[in-house]
């Protein structure tokens, strides 16, 4: 399924999904996030979507699952202690540290809320234009920008605090 098909077959489901999510979560902002997440998940599996008998029902099921996840769990947060590797090397930036740091970033991104994680990966790894992500999620570009900015800042801040913690226990 290409973007045009996605826009004509999947995006029109948006309103229905939004109402459903709103009813389930009881919160408009949560519902909006849920729907964007749903659409991004559907986009990530667009190859299979074309062959599906009932994409609308499938979309609804995904929305429902996301709502349940949201109601049930609080995401686990990254614990700085997970990353302590007693490296004794004194060089400012050893190879071990570099690898360790990149792993920390990977873990922080994995632990982002799903919508933010999908957006930051689509942008910073897959190189999507924000306009494209907005079209896929049926949201405003400003909403995508906001989530992207939040995701990037969260990764930065979390990394800084983990790094500071590591330096502290090293001393």
């Amino acid at each position, binding site marked *: 399924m290409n973007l045009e098909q996605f826009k004509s077959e999947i995006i029109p489901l948006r309103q229905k999904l939004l109402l459903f999510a709103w009813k389930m979560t009881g919160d408009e902002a949560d519902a909006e996030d849920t729907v964007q997440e749903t659409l991004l998940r559907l986009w990530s599996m667009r190859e299979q979507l074309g062959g599906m008998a009932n994409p609308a029902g499938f979309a609804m099921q995904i929305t429902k699952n996301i709502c349940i996840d949201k109601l049930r769990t609080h995401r686990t947060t990254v614990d700085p202690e997970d990353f302590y590797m007693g490296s004794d090397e004194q060089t*400012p*930036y050893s*190879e071990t540290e*570099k690898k360790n*740091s*990149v792993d*920390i*970033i*990977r873990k922080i*991104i994995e632990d982002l809320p799903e919508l933010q994680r999908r957006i930051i*990966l689509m942008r*910073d*790894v897959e*190189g999507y*234009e*924000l306009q494209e992500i907005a079209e896929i999620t049926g949201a405003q570009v400003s909403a*995508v*920008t*906001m989530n*992207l*900015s939040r995701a*990037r*800042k969260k*990764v*930065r801040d979390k*990394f*800084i605090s983990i*790094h500071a913690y590591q330096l502290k226990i090293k001393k």
Partner: protein
Amino acid sequence: MKKQIYIEELLEKYFEGQTSLKEEKVLREYFRQDNIPEAMETYRPMFAFFSDERGEESHKVKRSPHLVWIRWTSMSVAAAVMLFLGIKFIFLDAQRTTSTQSIVYIDGEKFTDLNTIQKETLNTLDAFSSTNDDVIASQIDMLESLDDF
């Protein structure tokens, strides 16, 4: 210095989600350099992660062939030493068992004479095997008696 200010501005825009794809490429390339100011190191892993995921050549210290040679040589030396020590231990052990260091105690009395030791060892083994024979025989008896039912 000018470049430095430009990068700082880009970073600020980046975290607001306001950079273009082209500007983000400039940032990734900048953080792939070896020498950047200490204050910038904080951001390196984040861009290194994206570069890695994109399959771009990342900031890596290339290993010189010389280093590789040293690494392999030291590993081979270490392996040879381990092998030598291992063999030595096995031989030492073998020597010990055939030397006069062997001791048995029979009824509290100490014996170091090899003949006595061998005899006693055989006796002990016999005792064990006969016990086993008894056990097995009794088990067979029991099974046979069960068959009668």
